[in-house]
């Protein structure tokens, strides 16, 4: 199944300065138009396939990020957008930041930049699509083999 042409995006602002958030939105709007890749922005984690997370993780938002990730159906891909989501960035030394998004959820693709430019965000989305396709194929193969095993 060619599913990479229609993944839905979920965007969550971890604890970013807003710069990467508005660049994520800008990459979906006319000039950059990531929607031509078939992705669509959604506000509902239960319908999302790719999670774009911006900003580092702090003590208050860690359970929120974890919950959003858990609510997304499998297969799913996580893209960390911006240097804060990758490592903590300039805020790494502050008392409240635990680190990058990979402290609480598994991150697949890292998009660096402060603020990450729309071009690199779109590149991240393209790589996330490919990974999503691959995971979806693996998932389908697993389902088929389990079905076959049940029939035997």
């Amino acid at each position, binding site marked *: 199944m060619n599913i990479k042409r229609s993944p839905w995006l979920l*965007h*969550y*602002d*971890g*604890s*970013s*300065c*807003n*710069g*990467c*958030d*508005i*660049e994520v*939105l*800008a990459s979906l*709007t*006319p*000039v950059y138009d990531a929607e031509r890749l078939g992705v669509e922005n*959604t*506000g*509902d*984690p239960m319908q999302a396939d790719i999670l774009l997370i911006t*900003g*580092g993780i*702090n003590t*208050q*938002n860690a359970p*929120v990020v974890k919950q*959003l990730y858990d609510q997304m159906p499998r297969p799913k891909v996580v893209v960390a957008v911006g240097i804060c989501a990758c490592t903590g960035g*300039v*805020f790494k*030394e*502050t*008392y*409240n*930041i635990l680190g990058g998004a990979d402290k609480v959820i598994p991150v697949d693709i890292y998009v660096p930049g*402060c*603020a990450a*430019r729309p071009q690199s965000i779109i590149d991240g989305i393209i790589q996330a699509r490919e990974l999503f396709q691959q995971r979806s194929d693996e998932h389908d193969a697993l389902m088929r083999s389990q079905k076959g095993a049940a029939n035997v």
Partner: protein
Amino acid sequence: MGKKSVVPFGPQHPVLPEPIHLDLVIEDEIISEAIPNIGFIHRGLEGLVEKKDFNEMVYIAERTCGICSFGHGLGYVEAIEHVMNIEVPARARYLRTIWAELGRMHSHLLWLGLAADAFGFESLFYESWRIRERILDLHELTCGSRLIFSVNKVGGVIRDIPADKLAYIKDQILIVEKEVKNIEKTFLGDYSVQTRSKGIGLLTKEEAHDLGAVGPFARASGITADLRTTGYAAYGELDFEPVISNDGDCYARLDVRIRELYQSIDLIRQAIDKIPEGELEAKAIGFPKGEYFMRIEQPRGEAVYYVKGNGTKILDRMRIRTPTFANIPPLCETLKGADYADVGPLVVSIDPCISCTER
């Protein structure tokens, strides 16, 4: 009367790009109380003042918020310059004004888009953001970055804008002015926008004053408060009047922000015409000793920067009070009695910038 129930709004919500949590107490679809809960993006930025020296803190201050980033850098360096008694050269002051106004235009266009999205007017959202890209291209042309400018330093600015680029900015803002006139017809004249905004979220002048509203939110309720009139940077040498409206509803907030866009275009033109030749920075000698309270007008309203130096390169304290923080109590007041369906547009109408608020 129906039974009271509590509906959580946020932190992750389709209408908000940033997390804020409101507990809405609802009776028959009418909100009787809104209890805000913030802190999801708290980074502890002010704590970094113990680890970075006062020159490095300029870049940290700019990362308070990616939308009004230039303003935060400006407020911080102006406060330090007052502590150290540095006279900033005129050309640097004019360049700061031009950048601050470009930042205001990009912020207001961004807000217009988000407001249209909250009303459910998707194409208007896309149109506003398309116009905004022109401003971002000007940022990139003059600073090399789209959002975080990093051109301020204590004593002046790092980069110059040469005459040919200034002329190009003038051409581009003329195009932006035409395009804004185009969307203004839809924003202020369209029936569906008016039904979602006229008479919604009323805030009277007295309430706005008592609860301490700031910025376009207060000016839409008839309060003439614009800190640019205090004349920091080069605003004292430019000619402008604060934009106000007396209606106090969401429609008035749209109106005020659209007229502020024209005001910013006018201010940039005046600054480009008047900009003198000269030095870009004054030498900063020694370390800051003493304290200062700097107030500047951000796109969202009054922001306060407090710095206290002890004569070493590490500051004792930096404190930022941001406009959205001041606007949350009046927002909770306007939410009382509002329809549940209007919560999205109403929350967006104050132009919430949660990253600023929680730092």
